[in-house]
């Protein structure tokens, strides 16, 4: 008994101590993000280093939480609890609309005006993610494109078919690959089937063209969504499924990439971050693997997905000044180059030199110059709720062969029509 009360006393003392020691020094800027992989850690260190050495005594406090949805949920819960972090990573989309409306975010317009963000940030589409009603609410920090297919050169060589220039080429070559004992098409179904969803979005853009696709989402056009091109997409999706293997169900994207790296599989559709995996395996884009931009080399497109950083309103003027210093710093040329080199993404400003970019990156840098080749990220048009409904439709269709292409197209049109 006495023992117990002693332990209790100890516990109380520990609580009191912990409370006292949490006092902040200098200006701590806490950032919640999900940049937790190796390459990303290296990239985020570049940010942190820049902030720590900005000469104003700022200190980057790193709050890494793996998985975007977990990190975002934590941010939201902290906001609700009245203890928001100073800054947080988000993806461009409608995820933070309600935060702007609720007056939770710090207005960065003065920093942006001083830094001429509207001139230096390219393409415009990525700026528009942060520029809402004439005010800047976030800093775009990089551009990722989802519109890529990666294939193994040795696999195509072994099957004796030419390297593909489009998805149609690939479908034609797939039987030969299969005969050669290669899994023609590599994909994974983990995490609610996001890889399938990515493939689907790429196929939609390729089939409809950028203009019709944008029109479909913005006008909620059931006509386009239920049209013959969309049915074609669903049919092609089923064809692709026939060329994948049994093990796809729960595979992660990087295990999928690994199938291509080890020449066990022919082709994978994945964002540009897959390049990091090839690089980590010591492969070069010249002789080991090939890349197909926009799923069709004759119609190159890049998307403007990527990461943005939002800043939360704080009632501490010193912290607010530090937040604004940080916002300016994240987009400065040196920091942009350092961060994006480490991460394998494109900088958001066109006036920096990326030095020795590989052939795939060159294709992307070329495409990003032409506004007509820019694809706005899907989740800029639709809410997360609709996005998940689409996800589920595509995942279910891919998994279940009894759902017909007609039924899937009809359901797709219905979701688009009712999207909010």
């Amino acid at each position: 008994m006495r023992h117990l009360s002693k332990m209790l006393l100890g516990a109380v003392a520990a609580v009191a101590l912990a409370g006292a020691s949490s006092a902040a020094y200098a200006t701590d800027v806490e950032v919640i993000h999900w940049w937790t992989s190796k390459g990303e850690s290296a990239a985020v260190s570049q940010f942190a280093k820049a902030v720590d050495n900005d000469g104003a005594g700022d200190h980057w406090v790193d709050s890494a939480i793996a998985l975007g949805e977990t990190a975002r949920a934590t941010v939201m819960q902290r906001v609700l609890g009245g203890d928001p972090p100073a800054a947080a990573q988000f993806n461009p989309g409608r995820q933070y609309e309600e935060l702007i409306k609720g007056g939770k975010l710090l207005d960065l317009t003065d920093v942006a005006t001083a830094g001429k963000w509207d001139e230096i940030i390219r393409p415009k589409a990525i700026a528009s993610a942060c520029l809402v009603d004439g005010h800047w609410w976030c800093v775009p920090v990089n551009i990722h494109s989802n519109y890529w297919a990666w294939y193994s050169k040795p696999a195509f060589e072994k099957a004796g078919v030419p390297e593909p220039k489009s998805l149609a080429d690939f479908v034609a070559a797939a039987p030969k690959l299969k005969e050669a004992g290669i899994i023609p098409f590599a994909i994974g179904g983990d995490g609610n089937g996001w890889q399938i969803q990515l493939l689907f979005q790429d196929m939609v853009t390729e089939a409809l063209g950028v203009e019709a696709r944008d029109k479909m989402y913005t006008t909620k056009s059931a006509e386009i969504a239920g049209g013959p091109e969309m049915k074609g997409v669903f049919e092609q999706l089923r064809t692709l499924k026939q060329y994948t293997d049994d093990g796809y169900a729960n595979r992660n994207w990087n295990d999928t990439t690994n199938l291509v790296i080890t020449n066990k599989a022919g082709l994978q559709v994945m964002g540009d971050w897959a390049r990091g995996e090839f690089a980590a395996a010591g492969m070069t884009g010249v002789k080991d693997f090939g890349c197909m931009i926009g799923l069709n080399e004759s119609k190159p497109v890049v998307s403007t997905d990527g990461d943005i950083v939002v800043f939360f309103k704080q009632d501490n003027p010193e912290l607010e000044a530090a937040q604004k210093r940080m916002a300016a710093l994240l987009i400065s040329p040196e920091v942009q180059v350092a961060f994006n080199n480490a991460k394998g993404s494109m900088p958001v400003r066109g006036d920096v030199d990326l030095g020795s970019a590989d052939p795939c990156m060159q294709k992307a840098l070329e495409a990003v110059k032409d506004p007509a080749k820019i694809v706005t990220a899907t989740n800029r048009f639709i809410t997360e709720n609709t996005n998940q409904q689409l996800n589920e439709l595509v995942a279910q269709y891919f998994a279940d062969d009894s759902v017909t292409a007609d039924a899937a197209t009809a359901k797709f049109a219905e979701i688009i029509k009712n999207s909010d």
Partner: protein
Amino acid sequence: MTDTSVASRIGSEPERAGTSVEPSGPKPRRISPGRIGLYAFLILSALFFLIPLYIMIVTSLKGMPEIRLGHLFNFPGEVTFQPWADAWLHACTGRDCFGLSPGFLNSVKITVPSVLISIVCASINGYALTFWPYKGANLLFGLLVFGAFVPYQVVIYPLIIGLSSVGLFASLPGIIIVHTIFGMPILTLLFRNFYAALPAELFKAGRVDGAGFWRIFFYIMLPMSVPITIVAVILQVTGIWNDFLFGVVFAGRQNWPMTVQLNNIVNTTTGVREYNVNMAATILTALVPLVIYFVSGRWFVRGIAAGAVKG
């Protein structure tokens, strides 16, 4: 673990108190076919239980090239302890590359007071419900048990609002309160069942001697509560040590438990996944509850016998 931790004795009838924990089956004869079948069953079952642990251990000792080959059950061709060192000291979780180690002390700081306070509260509850049932006490208890079925995430919003209104959101006391709340249903139930199985004469004798609520609790009941307290400690340590959801939200950044780093190491999806480091990190994180299990497994069954079975 606390998700599995509510029991109520719906439909249970009081059973005769018996404190024997000795095996009660027929005495074993010498090696008979039945005996062989029995051991075969137990050993096969043990193998089933050990499959994942085996996979985790061999994977944690392999290098990544070997893991990419995909022979899950093969013994490592070349044993390496690097993944263990990485998991504990070097794995990057965002900017910081210190592995799991920084969270260890925080996990201790959260677990120890949470376990103590939740057990103290629950034992008093159980005692009061058994011997001093005031009007409405059983209704409160019913509500508590009902609460155990609610998915945590559903009550998280009201809890955040409540705690932040009293200034305890994102602090050590905050997380301790949260763990105490969610441990309360099952622990109260266990203690209630335990005290209900004690001979009523103990309590009556105390009353005859003129002892009150607290005196009887401290001098009669507490000293007898060792077995059930051990069960409670095991359940709470496992649950609180493995908790990620509450820790990341309610503890505040400076108190983040080890599971936050484990989550960062294991759930990183955009980059090379180092499965060997993942496995080493999981085993390392689970060590504290595992040790407690191995040391006190015998008491676990004994304590459950005393607390969860009779009533």
